[in-house]
């Protein structure tokens, strides 16, 4: 299974580099995942530099360049819909390529790079999301307090 394909990024890649983009075409069908692949019982914070930050429906997707013991590479993150982002306090152009960002994520169940965005801080501003599974709509655990359209930042 490939990692999450990012439609808008994919389109840019198709324009920029035709041949490598074609390799990505095979992932089109799996472009929008449900959230079953993330472990919402866990929270970790990842810091890095924003490469792409696409607040879109049905899910937001972000690519962040992360440096850690394993080296430097791009992580893909998935997040709530654009509607949820705006209701949670996100504003247009809040996040731009090159910004330093700290993202609180529910990590991937398979331990791979990436995760589902629970909150993020950029340029001194924090946006946090309700603690509801985007798949089941049910509360995930008691780590956060908010409803689906709320703006409560996670406590941890």
């Amino acid at each position, binding site marked *: *299974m490939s990692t999450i394909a990012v*439609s*808008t990024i*994919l*389109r840019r890649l*198709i*324009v920029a580099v*035709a041949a490598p983009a*074609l*390799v990505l*075409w*095979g992932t*089109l069908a*799996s*472009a*929008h*995942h*449900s959230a*079953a*692949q993330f472990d919402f019982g866990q929270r970790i914070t990842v810091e890095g530099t924003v490469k792409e930050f696409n607040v*879109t*429906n*049905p*899910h937001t997707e972000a690519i962040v360049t992360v440096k850690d013991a394993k080296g430097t590479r791009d992580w893909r993150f998935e997040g709530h*819909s*654009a*509607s*949820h982002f*705006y*209701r949670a306090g996100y504003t247009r152009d809040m996040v731009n390529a090159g910004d330093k960002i700290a993202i609180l994520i529910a990590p991937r169940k398979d331990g791979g790079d990436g995760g589902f965005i629970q909150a993020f801080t950029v340029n001194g501003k924090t946006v946090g999301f309700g603690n*509801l*599974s*985007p*798949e*089941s*709509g*049910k*509360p995930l655990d008691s780590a956060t307090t908010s*409803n*689906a*359209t709320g703006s409560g930042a996670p406590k941890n």
Partner: protein
Amino acid sequence: MPSTLSAVIKAMSLAAAVAACVAVSAAEPAHPDFTGLWTGHREAGQGRASGFGGPQAGLPLTEEGKQRIADYNKLLGPERANPAAYCVDYGVPTVMELPGGYPIEFIQKPEQLTIIYEVENETRRIYIGDRQLPTQKRLPSRDGYSEGHWEGDTLVVKTTDLLDGQDQGGHPHSDKATVVERFSLTKDDKGTKLISYEASITDPVYYTAPVKIARKYEPLADGFIIPYRCPDEFWYSLLELRRDQVKEGKPGNARMSDVYKAREALE
């Protein structure tokens, strides 16, 4: 003289207008008005309702219903695919469960109640009264054809002509399903106006007995629907192919079949 005549005409017009108003109000008893923006209402101790996830527990499924759900579940893959993640409308009745917790807009006129869910701008039109589309012109869709009538202060809506809804989260159904909904106004214990919503799904293919749904909606505090644009991968892929053609000095005439071919070449 002219001024007197004018005054008489004015008086007559006024009388006619008043008479017309009286006639209208006598013929049309005031019905509840559901117009406004609404969001899910949670009562104390009640979990958040959702149309996501698998079918709710305890459904009175027929053997055929069980089999269809089992067959459908084989298609979901490890990521538990759902139609909304592919920019597809939820459909009736799932949309009325407000999956994902988005707001919903009601616009009411005497002859039509229009319901718009934020996600996908999914729109239902409920035709009230005698003006109805002939049955043979009702194109099946995920939201079906909805015909409404008033029973006192309750709007009763019957929805038929649904497409197969085996992919609807909480309440999968076949294309033989009929959904009867009841909308009325009520209040919570603080006096806030609420819509009380009840639905009953009858489906000879999936269910041995009617399946009930009950929800309440409360006014949306911040009062805006956010535009919901859901990208269509194939449309944008087609545009990119045509942009590339134009860049190369060719006519931009790639077709969807070219998009599919490019994908197949990789598989």
